[in-house]
């Protein structure tokens, strides 16, 4: 088991090293990309602090509390992009037949497809972002306790499981239809709705964001727990849905592989 994990880690490390080398070839593009990301983060924080300045609240949450929802969104979104960037190029792998080679190798095809292209830009962004996040949270007027922080960290793991399940679901659709690009960008737009507490949306949309594409479980619930606010969904149910989503997505992936008949050839 341990040597198997080592093998997977070595494969991932090699892929990450290759992606890093590729990123260093296009230094200027990557630098501008990073600058764009930093600018987006700053401007969103500026907006939230302007709300604070005017003492405006959103759906019953103070602007300081809303900052925490936004920062939680950032952590989850950036982490998913670091590890699961392979999903964004999966349709190309299907169309060119490269995915067929993944199936022949003695390593999980899902692992290769999911983690195929780690994003160095986002990894670097996360390294820069975390100290900024701590500094921002430090000066917020929010009620955070040690148990709420621990609960938050546990629920972030649950969020990561849901993110994984959603990415596997996108890959599954890719295997069945060769179409990934639109779906993954749709997911990115949906997760962006989680920058703010999803409880603010119209009831049917709120339901979708909690139970269909569970952005609310990924972002809103952990942030509510951190803020010592009663969570909108029972924590047991949220965890159950997190674990359940991974199991269902894995089942769907294996089923889709059985339907696969090599799109390229």
């Amino acid at each position, binding site marked *: 088991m341990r040597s198997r994990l080592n093998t997977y880690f070595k494969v991932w490390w090699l892929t990450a090293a290759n992606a890093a080398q590729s990123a260093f070839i296009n230094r200027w593009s990557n630098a501008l990309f990073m600058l764009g990301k930093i600018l*987006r983060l700053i401007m969103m924080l500026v907006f939230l602090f302007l709300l604070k300045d005017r003492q405006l609240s959103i759906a019953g949450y103070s602007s300081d509390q809303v900052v925490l929802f936004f920062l939680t969104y950032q952590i989850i979104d950036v982490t998913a992009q670091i590890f699961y960037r392979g999903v964004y190029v999966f349709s190309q792998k299907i169309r060119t037949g490269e995915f067929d080679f993944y199936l022949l190798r003695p390593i999980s095809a899902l692992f290769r497809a999911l983690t195929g292209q780690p994003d160095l830009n986002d990894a670097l962004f996360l390294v820069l972002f975390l100290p900024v996040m701590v500094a921002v949270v430090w000066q917020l007027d929010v009620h955070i306790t040690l148990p709420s922080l621990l609960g938050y960290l546990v629920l972030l793991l649950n969020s990561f499981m849901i993110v994984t399940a959603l990415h596997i679901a996108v890959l599954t659709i890719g295997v069945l239809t060769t179409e990934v690009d639109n779906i993954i960008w749709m997911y990115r737009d949906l997760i962006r709705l989680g920058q703010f507490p999803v409880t603010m949306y119209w009831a049917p949309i709120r339901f979708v964001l909690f139970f269909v594409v569970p952005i609310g479980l990924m972002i809103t619930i952990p942030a509510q727990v951190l803020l010592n606010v009663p969570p909108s969904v029972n924590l047991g149910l949220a965890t159950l849905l997190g674990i359940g989503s991974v199991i269902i997505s894995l089942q769907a992936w294996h089923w889709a592989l059985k339907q696969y008949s090599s799109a390229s050839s």
Partner: protein
Amino acid sequence: MNLMPQSLSKYYRLFVLSWQNGLVYRTSLLIWRLRQLLSTLMALTIWSVIFTDQSSAFSYTRSEMISYVFLVSILQSLILASSLHSLAGDIYNGNISQQLLKPQNLFMHFSALEVADKLRNVFFSLIEGAALYALFMPTIIWPSLQTWFVFIIWAILGTVIHFFITIIFGSIGFWSPETWGPKFLFFMILDFTAGKLYPLDILPRAVQQVLLITPFPYLSYVQIQLFLGRLTSTQMAWGWISLLIWTVITWLVAQWVWTKGTKGYEANGL
């Protein structure tokens, strides 16, 4: 009887083909429009909940802010929608060669594609706008006929500026395939200078003044300010001057970069 001059009919045909081509992949189109709808929905929801216990914020009334979000979503469908996002790749890969060999003005060719793409996006954004209107029931501010007239001209100028900026970015393909970095930065800046989430004038005055000397606010923001009647006559005059200056500057730069690129362009073995 065909009343269109022969020289224009081929561009009209291109326009029709581009319009039809955009409707071939219906699921892609549907998802693309749904994505646009989501960002508008988020902005409308945020401002609606902010205004539930406020009558005004950042010098905007509820009607003004909701009108801003509605307008920006429709205006961006016109100004920012583009079919030329792959231009740099097409140049770098040599795919542009066949267009260069045809008896046509390439800028007219691009314009025909752009007009079709923009009209398609505006058409769908109006339908989405109607759906959102039914959902939020906002009070939209309507300007005078005279303001409408100026607004349309400013929107066209904004569209032309964005077209030239797209050509400039696309021209990078003559020298490098790496255009996504500068384009990403461009869209990030655009996101808060002409963004759906909030208008530029809620930012600190110093930031506004710096941004107003760049082309970004002229790609949606000033047009909407005009529509909402939030510009003084002096600001309107500056709006006209800035829009015209940026149209000329971006046109000259696009011409220069394109000419320089095509002069050194080689596509062996295609």
